[in-house]
């Protein structure tokens, strides 16, 4: 049986913040390989560096040193514009606070990343409806975020993360603002994305119950991997 193909390869990654004269080490010489199709959960106490690691993998933060290869591309070497394009094509984001645009409907929110592609209106409509269907919100497509429950908002955010069909989905405490029922629904969707569609999901969480949905869990403490 062959080894699963790696999608993320991290080598000697460090991130040091300067706070005045004091230097704070957020990540300290991290090396890690994440396989394609894996549902990896990053755990650890506040300030352990798990969100920083997630942000660097997703190309929205830069390390102080080290490499972060995603599908063979070292994202630490890309400039701002290249990173913007890369994120659009390769990564889906799910945030703790949903981060939907309040003045746009669920449909328009999900459509946003597709506006940066060359797809026509009909193709975009089809993909958006499919994504909303996957998260079970096809009948809520014309609702504004304020007309949706927290769980529904997060499912719209997942649809937005999926609509460009990225290989990698990153989620930063996606259940942090949800009740337990909604949290189960969201985690179930993320799990099925990994198991049934083959997406690589990386999720930051404090909650061991949430981490149990993942296929692998790693722990960080003071910027270092502890397992």
């Amino acid at each position: 049986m062959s080894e699963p193909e790696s999608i993320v390869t991290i080598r000697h990654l460090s991130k040091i913040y300067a706070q005045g004269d004091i230097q704070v080490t957020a990540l300290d010489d991290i090396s890690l390989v994440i396989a394609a199709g894996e549902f990896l959960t990053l755990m650890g106490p506040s300030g352990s560096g798990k969100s920083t690691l997630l942000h660097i993998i997703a190309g929205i933060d830069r390390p102080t040193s080290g490499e972060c290869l995603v599908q063979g591309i070292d994202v630490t070497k890309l400039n701002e514009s290249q990173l913007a394009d890369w994120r659009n094509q390769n990564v889906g984001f799910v945030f703790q606070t949903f981060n939907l645009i309040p003045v746009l409907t669920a449909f328009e929110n999900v459509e946003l990343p597709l506006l940066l592609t060359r797809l026509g209106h009909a193709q975009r409509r089809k993909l958006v409806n499919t994504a909303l269907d996957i998260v079970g919100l096809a009948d809520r497509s014309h609702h504004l975020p304020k007309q949706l429950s927290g769980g529904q908002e997060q499912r719209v955010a997942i649809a937005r993360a999926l609509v460009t069909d990225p290989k990698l989905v990153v989620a930063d405490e996606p259940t942090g603002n949800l009740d337990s029922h909604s949290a189960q629904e969201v985690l179930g969707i993320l799990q099925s994305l990994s198991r049934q569609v083959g997406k690589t999901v990386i999720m930051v969480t404090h909650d061991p119950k949430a981490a149990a949905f993942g296929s692998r869990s790693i722990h960080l403490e003071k910027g270092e991997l502890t397992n």
Partner: protein
Amino acid sequence: MALPLRYSLRNALVRWRSTVATVLGIALVVFVFVLLQSLAAGIEKSSGNTGDPRNLLVVRKGSTAESASLIGRQNLQDIRYLPEIARNAAGEPVISADVLVLVNLPRRLHNGEANVLLRGVTPRGMELRPQVHLVAGRWFVPGHREVVVSAKLARRFANFDLGSSFKSGSATLTVVGWLAGGGSAFDSECWLDADECRSLFERDMYSSFLIRPVDAAAAARLIDRIENDRRFKLKAEREVDYYRKQTMTAAPIKWLGNFLAVTMSVGAVFAAMNTMYAAVGARTREIGTLRVLGFRRRSVVLALLLEGGFLALLGGILGCAIAFYWNGYTTATMGMETFSEIVFEFRVTPRLVTEGLIFAVAVGLIGTALPAIRAARLPVIAALKAI
């Protein structure tokens, strides 16, 4: 690719309170700008609307206005039979020697006094100015101390009703008719017989000659002749050119309009900037999210500029609409050339509306530029962590 237009528009509408404040601020600036410029445009149109391109107007050299010009009677004798001057059916030269006199008269409703321009005009002078016509009463009869006043002046001055009389110096004149000058400078005049005017006001001299040359070539020759004949010391030019230059009155109003527009626009820029800083501040995380999704800095800047520009355009449209309410409204001021009351209409022209809208959008864009650039330059992570 740019963010969808609806994103900018809906954001402007969602924050309707600050949107309304910004729109009203910009509307006020545009209203003041357009209204003052429409005053100037009205004065310019009044002067520019006067005269016939075939006519020549002769005044004393150095005089900037007919009312300040004095021409000796001998000059009339020397000029009237020149071959360049056309003749009417009766074989008489088509030349009118006019006399202009300023008289001080009371306004209606005891609203002080103001100078009014009386023009002593000949039958030839009336023929040469066909745009002037009677709208009420009848024309004056020479020798009967009668006067025909502008209908627009009649609304502003006491004793200008038909049948009323007014005294000026030793003369008492009876108003027998109202004239209309078709939006020209003649709307600010009162006409009476030229010889009677000279007699009543003891004027031995004329103020101007209005001449109809035979043709354009004759007009050019006549101008050359009058200007170069050392006996005359006169200046001749096309009547329309003379009136086109009579726009000095509009200059201070234009200057005031521009000055107020510039000073008020500084305030409007800060108002727009304040609105957009507040808008950007409240949406920092939203902007961070857009950047995460792949929208570039310039898309964010463009969306915010569109939002600011849209608000400013609304303000500009509102300001122009309020200013347009005064379009055609008749008012008066003291003419800087004649020192008499001149009546004119507010003229909100398409050009002024265009200038007002461009001005509004410029104010909006300048006010939005700084907050937009600041928002776009914020690192994605910092934007996402904003509360």
